[in-house]
């Protein structure tokens, strides 16, 4: 039993925090969000130098062989700083598929490139009618001489406009789907890019007879679901940790506001009704942190699949509820100020609102949790 970060983990988290203070504070972030790509090449380079991009990549492919627990402190710091870089898309999703199930050649080409910051990835999976159901894939595959032709429509692909390669799911039989590595620039791939409500970049991806060769298959044929389930659980654990950071930021900002804002001649933090609500936000933050620890400790490959699923869903239920509670109350307690784009807390509100739904809302995970009892 040990709830402190290890020395290495803490050092890494400290340097991420220092980087954010120096180069990614609220003003710098505003400019990055408003820039054409909505991301910072400088930040990405620094992430590579700090070893963040290779952190969960195997050591024999240029990484550090870390797991979800090692990423926790990083994600928490990213949450606190509301970092909008495509880290989750590339490191938390895309590279995970390759590291866990990629062919030798895929691992060799892609993993070092990701670790060094030369390649970004995205996971193109969700379709219009799928909601949070990971099994629902209608994108089609037609085998041909060169390999396969993919056609379909993927929605809200996080990081798609910035990615070099996409991991795309497509139905290879009635019983299952498979995953394919597709160049974002390949003929037939069209990305409609947009900014997201939480100020990252994503896109809808249309695939029209996109030719991929036989080496493009990631993992075994028809076995996509188990792999996606595993990787999405891993990514869910990461956003749980991120949420803890965002909640921390929102709570601190609210507490600071209660201590400084005056009404009727006194600081509003002297009003007991607001004190008790702030206490509840604080408790929610602590409970959320505990569940994020649980999620991270179960998110790696080794864990028993049902044990992992149960823990991740339990964590996501708590995190979703906590996101909702803290985001709504932090705006309310800030009053009008919290409603403005000028306050960081309003951006925390956006991210928390979206984390509550990312990879499944509370309802989705309640259903999954109950089924695993």
């Amino acid at each position, binding site marked *: 039993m040990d709830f402190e970060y290890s020395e290495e983990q803490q050092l890494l988290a400290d340097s991420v925090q220092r980087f954010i203070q120096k180069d990614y504070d609220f003003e710098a972030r505003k400019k990055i969000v*408003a820039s054409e790509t909505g991301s910072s090449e400088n930040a990405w380079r620094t992430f590579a130098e700090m070893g963040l991009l290779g952190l969960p990549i195997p050591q024999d492919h240029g990484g550090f062989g870390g797991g979800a627990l090692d990423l926790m402190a990083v994600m928490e710091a990213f949450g606190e700083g509301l970092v909008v870089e495509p880290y989750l898309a590339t490191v938390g999703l895309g590279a995970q598929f390759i590291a866990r199930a990629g062919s030798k050649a895929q691992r060799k080409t892609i993993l070092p490139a990701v670790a060094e910051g030369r390649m970004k990835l995205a996971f193109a999976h*969700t379709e*219009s*009618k*799928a*909601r*949070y*159901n990971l099994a629902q894939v209608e994108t089609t595959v037609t085998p041909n001489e060169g390999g396969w032709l993919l056609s379909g429509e993927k*929605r*809200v692909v996080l990081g798609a406009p910035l990615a070099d390669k996409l991991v795309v799911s497509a139905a290879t039989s009635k019983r299952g789907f498979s995953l394919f590595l597709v160049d974002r620039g390949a003929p037939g791939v069209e990305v*409609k*890019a*947009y*900014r*997201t*409500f*939480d*100020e990252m970049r*994503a896109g*809808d991806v249309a695939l029209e007879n996109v030719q991929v060769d036989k080496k493009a298959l990631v993992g075994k044929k028809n076995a996509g679901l188990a792999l996606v389930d595993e990787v999405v659980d891993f990514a869910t654990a990461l956003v749980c940790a991120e949420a803890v950071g965002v909640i921390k930021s929102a709570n601190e900002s609210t507490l600071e506001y209660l201590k400084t804002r*005056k*009404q*009727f*001649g006194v600081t509003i933090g002297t*009003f007991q*009704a*607001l004190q008790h609500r702030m206490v509840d936000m604080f408790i929610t933050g602590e409970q959320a942190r505990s569940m994020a620890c649980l999620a991270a400790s179960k998110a790696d490959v080794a864990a028993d699949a049902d044990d992992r699923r149960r823990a991740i869903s339990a964590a996501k239920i708590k995190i979703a509820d906590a996101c909702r509670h803290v985001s*709504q109350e932090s*705006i*309310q307690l800030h*009053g*009008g100020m*919290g*409603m*403005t*784009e*000028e306050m960081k807390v*309003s*951006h925390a*509100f*956006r991210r928390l*609102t*979206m984390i509550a*739904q*990312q990879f499944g*809302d509370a*309802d989705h995970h*309640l*259903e999954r949790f109950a089924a695993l009892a």
Partner: protein
Amino acid sequence: MDLSYSPEELAFRDEVRGWLKDNLPEDLRRKVAEYEELSRDDLLRWHRILAKKGWVAPSWPKEWGGNGWNVVQRYLFEEECGYAGTPPLIPFGLSMCAPVLLKFGSEEQKKRFLPRIYNGDDFWCQGYSEPGSGSDLASLKTKAVRQGDHYLVNGQKTWTTLAHYADWIFCLVRTDSESAKRQEGISFLLFDMKTPGITVRPLVLLDGGHEVNEVFFDDVKVPVENLVYEEGKGWTVAKYLLGHERMNTGRIGGSKRELAKLKEFAAAQSKNGRPLIEDARFRDRLSRVEVELMALEITNLRFLDQMRRSGNPPGADVSMLKIKGTEIQQSLSELMLQAVGPLAQPFRPVDAPVAARDDFDPFVASLAPRYGNMRKTTIYAGSNEIQRNIISKMTLGL
């Protein structure tokens, strides 16, 4: 006890409903339904349609354009507008400045301003809140110093809704900073927004929308004839306005329309191959909001019945309608967001080029910002915390 409207009231409702159906322009109806930003022209167009019909200011005295509707008719009219989804009637001229002028204004002021307000010739905004004052209005600092035939005004207002559309602003300013009581020494002034020295700066909200502003006054000269009532009696004017009866605090009609939209929308979303609305988890939250709304409508009618019976304005009851009404509005917008699930992400920033606007379904993309925007409802017009303080003090005697 009888929960139904009388045949006369029903006939009136049907008349209003029918007329709205025929006269609400389709483009405006669509913009409201899809949470699009309404332009100054949109707002004034609808104002003028109602003015022409004689329905824009029911509660005014008949000589100035009022139409003598009783409280039930006024309630029905406002809720029918909400239910039909008309653009809002911006209240700053019609139901804030005008009642003040009718009660405290000089004959000249009435003649000069009321017809233009009625006809929608002038767009008004309200200069109350300041950066340091929120719920604590009396702490305002904007100064007006009398110099001959004008006041010289310096200071800043904030949260000024639609100041960027406005021709005129009514303001609370401090004309005497020596007063013992903070409530004294405040005056009520009307400014032309084109007066030199006025700067309007947008306050973009967390949904990316521009509806409120900061307004800066730098040596703004306001003619003395624009003072309403007596110098130093502005607080009396402000208090009168705060107690001024509003019929649609609960926004029942609007929430009914949103509820119907939510049901339709949730029926069209699919969850594991079945309509989302059949999912017990989602459905129960929807049902609970529906039940609260049913209850609120009856509660509202009970207050209306009391008002009609007693002839008194509603008092602290309005606080309850505000609290419940805004909670319902927020829940509805949250359920819309939850209904659309993972597709809610796309966002159109204020500064996005128009060309980018066709890249995603604008209605779906409006749901997250709409949810964000609705957080304001429990903060503005007296935060729900302030409303609870009011009920605690006025109704419960705590």
